[in-house]
């Protein structure tokens, strides 16, 4: 039977280099118009949005419009004094996703003392359940993304001992599937984004022994399609954010070279918007800061000399991870 592969076709006139200046402007302008519709529409993800934009700028060696103090002030106001957690924006409820993003931003600007750190630690610890898993907020949604957020936040604060790490590992290990991948919960389908969360989690907790290294790495490199792009699950379309999730996981597993780097670079370059700047999920779609960060970060892992080195576990500039003296586990041979 003929094979029909779900994929896209790359047009011949794609940019051949990274349009740094355009991307920097794109990020700086994005969300600056506070009364724009987009701004109001995205307040529920503001702090994470700040992390995507600011990290992308830092990786491109560009300073943001706002000062370090302004950024810290904003985050400080998003911290809930009672629970200690950080919300997406003022008056929203705290959530673990934004708590991690806030801590990542403050680490990048070496400004952790701007917030109540004991509060953050207390908040993360309060979200762990008896099976080791983590809730995203007090409403109880559980998945492996939150396990990653919990240990990444605590590791950045050097406070991993505030939670039951062994039990947390047990939960993540229980989400490993027969194909070597990981899903959101036990026996949920393998998914590249969740694989990144689980592999990153195991790298932070120094427990990569849980992984079936080559089975997983093969599954990950099976994500590469003839267009060069990577998808997140079998029979799905390629997407720039998966370039990051698959590549960072392969980097941690020491198997980055198993994919065709040149073909992937071509796909990522094709996802740039030559007019507005920024990267879209796939060629021709609308660019956004989320895919822009992951496009730039993927280029860093692929060794682009004009992008700062990124740490595959934390998705933060390597010099920041070095300054914090963190050494997340990596497999090498």
């Amino acid at each position, binding site marked *: 039977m003929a094979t029909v592969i779900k994929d896209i076709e790359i047009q011949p006139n794609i940019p051949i280099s990274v349009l740094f200046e355009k991307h920097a402007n794109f990020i700086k302008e994005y969300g600056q118009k506070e009364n724009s519709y987009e701004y109001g529409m*995205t307040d529920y993800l503001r702090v994470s949005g700040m992390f995507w934009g600011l990290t992308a700028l830092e990786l491109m060696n560009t300073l943001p419009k706002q000062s370090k103090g302004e950024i810290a002030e904003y985050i400080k106001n998003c911290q809930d004094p009672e629970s200690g957690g950080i919300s997406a924006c003022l008056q929203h409820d705290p959530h673990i996703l934004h708590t991690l993003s806030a801590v990542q931003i403050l680490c990048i600007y070496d400004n952790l003392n701007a917030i109540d750190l004991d509060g953050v630690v207390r908040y993360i610890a309060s979200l762990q359940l008896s099976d080791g898993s983590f809730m995203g907020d007090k409403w109880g949604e559980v998945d492996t993304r939150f396990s990653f957020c919990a240990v990444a936040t605590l590791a950045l604060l050097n406070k991993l001992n505030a939670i039951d790490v062994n039990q947390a590992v047990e939960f993540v290990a229980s989400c490993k599937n027969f*194909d070597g991948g990981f899903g959101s919960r036990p026996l*949920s389908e393998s998914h590249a984004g969740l694989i990144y969360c689980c592999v990153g989690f195991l790298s932070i907790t120094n427990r990569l022994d849980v992984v079936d290294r080559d089975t997983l790495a093969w599954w990950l490199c099976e994500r590469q399609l003839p267009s060069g792009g990577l998808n997140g*699950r079998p029979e799905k379309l390629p997407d720039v954010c998966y370039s990051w999730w698959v590549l960072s996981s392969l980097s941690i597993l020491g198997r980055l070279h198993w994919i065709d780097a040149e073909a992937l670079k071509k796909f990522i370059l094709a996802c740039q918007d030559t007019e507005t700047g920024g990267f879209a999920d796939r060629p021709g779609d609308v660019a956004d800061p989320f895919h822009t960060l992951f496009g730039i970060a993927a280029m860093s892992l692929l060794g682009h000399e004009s992008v700062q080195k990124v740490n595959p576990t934390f998705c933060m500039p390597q010099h920041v991870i070095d300054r914090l003296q963190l050494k997340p586990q990596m497999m090498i041979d």
Partner: protein
Amino acid sequence: MSDCSSDENENDTILYRDRPEWKDVTPLKQDDGDEPVVAIDYTEAFEDCYDYFRAILKKKEISERALELTKTAAQLNSANYTVWQYRREILKGLGKDLNEELDYIQKVILKHSKNYQVWHHRRIIVEWLQDASKEKYLTETVLAKDAKNYHAWQHRQWVIRTFKLFDGELEYVDTLISDDVRNNSAWNQRYFVINNTTGFTDEVLDREIDYTLNHIKTVTENESAWNYLRGLLLHGKEGLSNNKKVTDFCEELYKSGNRSPFSLAVIVDMCFEQLNEGGGDSRYTPQRAKELCEELINKYDIIRANYWKHMIEMIDKTMKDENIESSN
């Protein structure tokens, strides 16, 4: 990144600032820092609704009008998790009929089926009600449009496991696989059901191997089915290379001229298993594995050439180690 689509009450266009029942509330403008307000290009309804939303959220008002306002706020931006959290507090505070809430959230899910918040809201309401009778049907409706929707599968697995609704699930999975034999979510669900019910007994394994091989026969380039087959064989005693049904099938396929990379990959791994563990099947030699790797590198799976080069290295390394061992 954000989704915004109109809802059934879209002709309900009276702005909150023009409604008499909201006269006592002072809308709270978005205030997020020092940047001067530049252009006003919010859509009016969005701004109007969220100004009032912020105002009543601040007072934590529990009232019918607040409940109604969260509906509009959710309609304007269903991914705003605070809206849903607040809505639940109001539902509880007013002691509302949760079955009505199920009907409402079903409509929202059918419009915004890739949104974490709406599914989570659904789950909490089902938990409060302890009634999961409508959940399978809801997820089937969503999966009929997008058979790989991760949220729908997650919800379905939760419901099935929590309320013990495994009956008929394997049949449902079978219809999905018949519709699209490459539906990885469906193959995963097959594993989920068996793992949670009969387990992989010899009998079940035998049945599942037949089932999978039959489906591979129709479409050989199918990563999901081949992975499922490998997953099954992890439960058997014979490993990958000693199950006669499977080895005969692969050899038959190869002889017919089929060069699906997934099938070649399995033969390579069979050879490698025999090299490591012995087994004495003369069809599975390291030489054959290396030849197949070369074919994959040069012809059938060029994009993953480095992976196949790695396999050749592993085979060479194992052979060398064994030579050293046998000469000692």
